[in-house]
């Protein structure tokens, strides 16, 4: 397999000591196996996330993303931009679409970018890591390096919102995307039928409207249990955090006894590719994935 190379936009939550640092650990392990080289965009900044609109408005939000894209064009010419965070991907891609289709907005953005010594040309495509896996490799290729299939382990594929809407993964349905289930199956795991796979976890409103968001989280977790899943798997850092972190609060509020691990697809892939618990960032789980830790320690 030829080495693939991308301009990498890791995003704030993946940084050392941040809420999705274990996501990055597992992505790095997974990419090592797949011979993917991720070249970090120098001095990248926050995308503004989904909540940046209220204070940031339109143009300031777009220039934040345009700066990252301009930096990638300049320093990593010819490489596509790949994000692992769903919100980073969505924001960057939205900015690209707006600037590429609206010359006024693009000129305005470039005027602001001058202040940072940069220019946006719209040369780099913006992609999510899942697109790289599904489109540049494909399920059959991804299956090849599997040395330890996740046989008999049942996962609820929680796709959530932002890798699925409004852009989504090409060829997938917004209401029933199957890429995550297929990734689980390619790793030898079992993807249970899961009716809450595209339900919103509350996003940033888990902070500002905890009661309302926790109702969403309750539905998401409950359905995973109801369908016999042992673990939840997701492609989004905020979905992961919300659905894992607030299970204790949901239990208090609803009298439930939820305690289900919430993993990233990249963690499952790392393990199936023979990686250790540490390679997969399993030490970053708040709710430990005991079954996977045991699985990883077996030869």
């Amino acid at each position, binding site marked *: 397999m030829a080495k693939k190379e991308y301009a990498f936009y890791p995003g704030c939550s993946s940084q050392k000591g941040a809420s999705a640092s274990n996501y990055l650990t597992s992505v790095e392990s997974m990419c090592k196996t797949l011979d993917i080289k991720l070249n970090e965009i120098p001095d990248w900044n926050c995308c503004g996330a989904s909540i940046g609109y209220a204070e940031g408005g339109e143009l300031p939000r777009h220039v934040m993303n345009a700066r990252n894209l301009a930096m990638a064009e300049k320093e990593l010419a010819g490489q596509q931009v790949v994000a692992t965070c769903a919100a980073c991907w969505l924001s960057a891609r939205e900015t690209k679409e707006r600037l590429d289709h609206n010359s006024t907005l693009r000129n305005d*953005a470039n005027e602001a970018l001058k202040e940072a010594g940069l220019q946006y040309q719209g040369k780099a495509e913006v992609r999510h890591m899942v697109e790289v896996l599904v489109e540049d490799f494909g399920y059959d290729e991804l299956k090849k390096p599997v040395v330890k299939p996740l046989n008999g382990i049942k996962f609820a594929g929680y796709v959530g919102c932002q890798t699925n809407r409004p852009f989504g993964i090409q060829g997938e349905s917004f209401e029933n995307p199957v890429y995550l289930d297929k990734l689980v199956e390619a790793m030898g795991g079992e993807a249970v039928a899961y009716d809450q796979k595209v339900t919103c976890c509350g*996003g940033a409103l888990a902070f500002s409207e905890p009661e309302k968001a926790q109702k969403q989280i309750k539905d998401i977790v409950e359905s995973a249990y109801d369908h016999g899943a042992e673990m939840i798997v997701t492609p989004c850092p905020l979905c992961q955090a919300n659905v894992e972190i607030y299970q204790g609060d949901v239990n208090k509020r609803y009298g439930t006894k939820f305690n289900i691990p919430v993993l990233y697809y990249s963690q499952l892939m790392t393990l199936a590719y023979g990686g250790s618990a540490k390679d997969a960032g399993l030490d970053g789980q708040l709710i430990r994935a005991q079954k996977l830790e045991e699985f990883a320690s077996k030869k």
Partner: protein
Amino acid sequence: MSDLNTQAVSKYGNNFLKEVEACVEEGDMVKMCMQCGVCSGSCPFGPHWAHPPQEIFMMIRAGKREEVLTSDSMWMCTSCYNCIVRCPRQLPITHIMHGLANYAHRLGLAPKNQPTRQFAKLFWNNIVQTGRVNELKLSLGLYFKDGLASGIKTGLAMKNVGLGLMKAKRLNPMEIIKGHGCKDIKGIQAMVKKAQEIEASRKGYKAA
């Protein structure tokens, strides 16, 4: 009333739709709504909107300026994009809701203590400080937004989550002193300032 608001009222009079078209992100698509209600039925926080999106669109056309801009409805948007992908007329509903919230916030009409409005403000100010999110300061900022006493109470309630995250190395207490950040923070701040100025002049935000 803020200067900006007075200015907008005198400029657009009773034509609130025209005002939305000129000043709100994707506002020119509001008139395309056919009142089917799919957006309202698709929203995860639907039951919590005083006026769901479909109703907001009709209210804009009916000139109900104050009711729309002072409503906390738009602040219920979780950015799930369900409404966008389901709208038969392809209205970018999520963006319009964001745009309305931003406009109401800018005019000083949005509900003052609306928690998502407060959080959004904290978030943006957080990221333009260093160029990247400081998760610890952001959480603490939210807990202590209503003062010390309630901050300590929320902090204690969230203690186990915080300790769990620290143990899992997903929260670093040192972030309170020195967090992650961009090298060219000066350039970023100058760029954002410039973008704010351009946006203000394009949308006529500049107070007379």
